[in-house]
């Protein structure tokens, strides 16, 4: 029964035109960045390294597929959660607004199963988005720019990773990105349970992510006390996969916190939805 529910939810996602906005947006962003770097990447690299090149000269192929993929992932930090929220933010509230929720719940399935089916379908959508991103950003960039060592720019440090030590980090980064986006999808699902307004949870999820990200990127000491409590602080932990050496302690903690967030948001969703009065 659960399988049939998930299939129905996937069908609903596939039928909505807005589900394709994410794919188109990723396609466009990746294509624009790859095209721009292919045409004028050398001057971009020169601009980034101009301070360093006053002391040292850099030998080797700096602009390569791995660096381009990293730049693309870096650029999509804020956009990807918004694209996910666009689809997962109204999975329940949208049905409530359309008046199909009551009909759905007349089927011989528990409300918990309904919430879980919607979450799993949302996660499948997230997975598809990431697979497309991986194919275009990693596969496409490698095809266009070739392999090479990866230079990771930190604000005051530079890390150079050997080309044969990079690919597994990207796979792990995509895995962590999936977990991070699942947090967003579970968060928006939770908000979706609270209201019968279709657009509200989507806007609220986007607003929360934008506000949390802004707080996370500010250097104010006051915000240092708040940052550990923002789930967005752990969503960018995929970049730590490119540290040398990887701090597995931070990775484990962050992954655990992300999983706990998913459990918490799903738990609240199930708890609330099971007690919710369904009027439509």
């Amino acid at each position: 029964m659960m399988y049939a529910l998930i299939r129905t939810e996937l069908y609903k996602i596939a039928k909505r035109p807005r589900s394709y906005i994410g794919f188109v947006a990723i396609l466009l962003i990746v294509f624009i960045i790859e095209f721009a770097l292919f045409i004028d990447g050398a001057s971009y690299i020169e601009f980034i390294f101009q301070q360093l090149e006053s002391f040292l000269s850099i030998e080797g192929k700096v602009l390569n597929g791995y660096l381009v993929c990293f730049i693309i992932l870096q650029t999509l930090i804020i956009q990807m959660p918004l694209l996910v929220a666009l689809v997962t933010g109204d999975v329940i509230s949208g049905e409530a607004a359309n008046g199909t929720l009551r009909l759905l719940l007349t089927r011989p399935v528990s409300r918990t199963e309904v919430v879980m089916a919607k979450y799993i379908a949302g996660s499948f959508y997230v997975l598809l988005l990431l697979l497309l991103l991986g194919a275009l950003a990693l596969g496409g960039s490698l095809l266009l720019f070739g392999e090479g060592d990866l230079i990771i720019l930190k604000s005051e440090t530079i890390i150079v990773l050997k080309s044969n030590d990079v690919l597994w980090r990207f796979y792990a980064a995509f895995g962590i990105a999936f977990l991070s986006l699942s947090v967003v999808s579970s968060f928006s699902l939770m908000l979706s349970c609270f209201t019968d307004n279709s657009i509200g949870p989507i806007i609220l999820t986007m607003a929360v992510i934008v506000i949390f990200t802004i707080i996370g990127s500010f250097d104010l000491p006051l915000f240092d006390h708040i940052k550990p409590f923002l789930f967005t602080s752990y969503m960018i932990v995929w970049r730590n996969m490119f540290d040398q050496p990887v701090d597995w302690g931070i990775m484990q903690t962050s992954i655990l916190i992300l999983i706990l967030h998913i459990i918490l948001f799903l738990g609240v969703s199930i708890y609330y939805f099971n007690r919710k009065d369904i009027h439509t």
Partner: protein
Amino acid sequence: MNKLLAVGLICLSLVATTLTGQKAEQLVRNIQADFKKIERYTADLNISFDIPYIKIDPVKGKVYFKQPNLFKVKTEGIAFMPKQNPFYLMELISDPESYVCIDGGSETTPGSIIRIIQLVPKDHEELILAKLWVDAKGNRIQKTLLTTKTNGTIEIKYIYDNNPVIKLPTSMIFGIEVGKFKIPKMMSADLNSRTKQTTSTPSLTQGKIRLNFSNYKLNQDFNEKVFNQ
């Protein structure tokens, strides 16, 4: 009598200065003569780095050289190299008329006497001063300190093996000055990092790049297109 003694001492010191100056020049010429015998060479290269703010593993590569000053390092990946060409010095000493040689005395180390020689270029596009520490017995440069117009000062230490045929170093250690750099947050992978408070003037810190040479091939042909790549 005292006047005579004073004049004598001055003359003696002038003669001594001239003699030691000539010796220093001769030493530089000997080094140049030895180096001139190598018209070209290639060698395998292993570069290791100890540069502040940069984490990078050792890199393998190959080095190509052709007289008078064509020099190319090809690496199997990304590497950071000193901005200064290490062969500025050889280019300078190839023409004895292009510099003034000043004897800076000597240092005694176990088993050898190290002569300190300063070369002041008369008209060089980049080099202001070159200070050399030369093993007088083996005619080998042990250390150089090159002061350049645009790229600061660079120290190069030379390490040799006991091969009497190949008078080229097995290792060159570049001491470089690296200033603190900052990459804009939107370009770095550090959105959540705290920016450390820094003083208004960026401080320079010392870094090292070590080039280990092996498998020298002297005066053997290679494709010179490598210098244009």
